[in-house]
């Protein structure tokens, strides 16, 4: 009789455990679904495959006349937005001295005024708010003058000439939103770390949505905070602008979220016979996670150090900027 009673007790305990499990799973499922509905709401489009873009073919370039090519080279006007905070000051200095000089215009948007450097004060510490306000400012002021908008953190090193080459012959009246993409559930977004590129059309659509709080809330995410690059993707999705991954003709990523050194180390582990080939694209646009010193080394390594006797017959010509001594 005791045995039966014990069995009965165990049975009721395990059944309550199971009931608890079920309730817990249901609760969890509900929360996840709600979170996703928030993100995916309004997305009537069918599920998108992984989007990727490649640069123009060389044969196609040569079909264009020389004069037209020169005209086209000059027609790329890239405006660079660099989002900075006071703690970034040494990276800020390095970035200011180096690659941003190759943007047609570069401005620094900071969370607060910093004595040492000029910047546009966004008056907020929140990255997403900074990003929104920067995009609004840039569009308001410069929509007539620039046709491509590149946003980065000061940990990123960018080669604007390669960006322009990548964008060559892409119709900026189409909404482009590209960089190094990451998939998070249903959402494909461009990682801030690799740098974010928007065409003027995307900027237009984005700016019309930024004032609509239901579509582009200032406080994204129901329970936990969503990163600013994801928020941007959500916002752009409403406007029919989708993230595209930029790759070269071999499928190598052109926007990189890590430094050259890190990729080299990985290649030394994974493919020791082909380290440099396995590393990175010849026409890489960005690398990330650099120290201020490394920024200067990259400037020298990219814009100056080279092997004599290797000549490139490039279809486009980009002249060095005025007033720079390290390129």
């Amino acid at each position: 009789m005791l045995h039966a009673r014990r069995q009965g007790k165990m049975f009721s305990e395990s059944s309550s455990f199971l009931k608890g499990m079920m309730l817990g799973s249901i609760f969890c499922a509900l929360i996840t679904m709600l979170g996703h509905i928030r993100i995916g709401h309004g997305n009537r489009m069918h599920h998108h495959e992984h989007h990727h873009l490649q640069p123009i073919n060389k044969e196609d370039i040569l079909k264009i006349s020389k004069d037209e090519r020169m005209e086209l080279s000059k027609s790329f006007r890239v405006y660079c937005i660099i989002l900075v905070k006071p703690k970034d000051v040494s990276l800020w200095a390095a970035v200011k001295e180096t690659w941003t000089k190759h943007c047609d215009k570069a401005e620094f948007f900071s969370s607060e005024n910093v004595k040492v450097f000029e910047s546009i004060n966004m008056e907020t510490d929140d990255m997403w708010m900074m990003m929104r306000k920067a995009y609004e400012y840039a569009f308001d002021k410069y929509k007539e003058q620039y046709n491509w908008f590149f946003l980065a953190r000061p940990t990123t090193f960018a080669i604007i000439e390669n960006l322009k080459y990548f964008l060559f012959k892409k119709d900026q009246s189409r909404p482009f939103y590209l960089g190094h993409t990451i998939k998070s559930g249903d959402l494909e977004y461009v990682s801030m770390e690799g740098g974010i590129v928007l065409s003027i059309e995307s900027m237009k659509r984005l700016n019309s949505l930024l004032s609509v709080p239901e579509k582009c809330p200032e406080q994204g995410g129901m329970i936990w905070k969503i990163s600013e690059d994801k928020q941007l993707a959500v916002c752009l999705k409403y406007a029919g602008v989708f993230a595209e991954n930029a790759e070269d003709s071999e499928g190598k990523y052109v926007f990189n979220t890590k430094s050259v050194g890190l990729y080299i180390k990985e290649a030394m582990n994974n493919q020791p016979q082909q380290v440099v080939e396995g590393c990175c694209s010849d026409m890489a646009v960005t690398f990330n996670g650099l120290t201020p010193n490394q920024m200067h080394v990259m400037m020298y390594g990219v814009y100056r150090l080279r092997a004599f006797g290797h000549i490139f017959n490039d279809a486009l010509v980009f002249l060095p900027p005025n007033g720079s001594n390290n390129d």
Partner: protein
Amino acid sequence: MALVEIRFREMASKSWLNFLTFFCGSLFGYFICSQLFSIFLGEQGDTQPSILHNDPHARHSDDSGHGHLEGQMDFNADVSQHTDENTDVSKKLYQKVKILCWVMTGPQNLEKKAKHVKATWAQRCNKVLFMSSEENIDFPAVGLKTKEGRDQLYWKTIKAFQYVHDHYLDDADWFMKADDDTYVVLDNLRWLLSKHDPEKPIYFGRRFKPYVKQGYMSGGAGYVLSKEALKRFVDAFKTDKCTHSSSIEDLALGRCMEILNVEAGDSRDTTGKETFHPFVPEHHLIRGYLPKTFWYWNYNYYPPVEGPGCCSDLAVSFHYVDPTTMYELEYLIYHLRPYGYLYRYQPALPANIGKEISEAYKNEDQKVKLGNP
């Protein structure tokens, strides 16, 4: 009455236990479920896209099938990334300015360091030899039959040059010594040497001023001897003009060179920037990296510069380069470039290099004309 109480207590504890198990169950269920969700819906982050069967952009396996570069320079190994590249000038210089490189290494460093030299810049030498105290047939490395250690460096150097002289004198015009942590840009070395006559007694490197009147060349940054300089150097030990023993390799060699009337050449580029570097780019490019009390500032023969003016665009060597940096330099010099960019420094091709090269180079000149108003 007591029975009811006991019964009651039993039920109370039972339901409390039930509640506890229920609660644990719900936590457990929640946890399992959230893990499952995050696996199925989670970040598919920085990995390259997986190959889909119907995806026209599907990447094929990473094995590009390019053979491991052995001995001969294969200018077309990396075809697809370099379709815009014209290497005529580089190839012409390869034939006209023959350089034999020997790399100072040791048995402990073959796999650690020399291997990466072999995988990167060494292939661009017309001939490369790895010099060790003991022979290694597989690597391959020449055995000098010496001991290892800093105090053996000069002795190894003498034996290495002797070996090169005895076996390969007619195979090259110039003879370059480097360490297994030196990165050498052979194309730029050829450009530098193309202006000089290998029959003249001269040698080049990073010139230091102390102790030797005409200066001597830093060992780590690498130095290169003309054919005539090599002949005189090897001869010096047969005739006892130079001493065999020294614990400072580069200084001893420099003294010997002076005794033999081998000129210490000026290796700076046409704007006066240094080409051979005793450190990695970062140490030279960053102002204040090397403290003002550092020996370097008093050693340099020419006025030392830090910051962007430190280093020529056509740098020949860097030293204290670790394996990762070897590949980084290889990538930055031979792969990554700013498309369409017009370099500020546009040095002329040396006059004595054939007409055919000048023709190829004229295309480059076109860009210069376009660029300069």
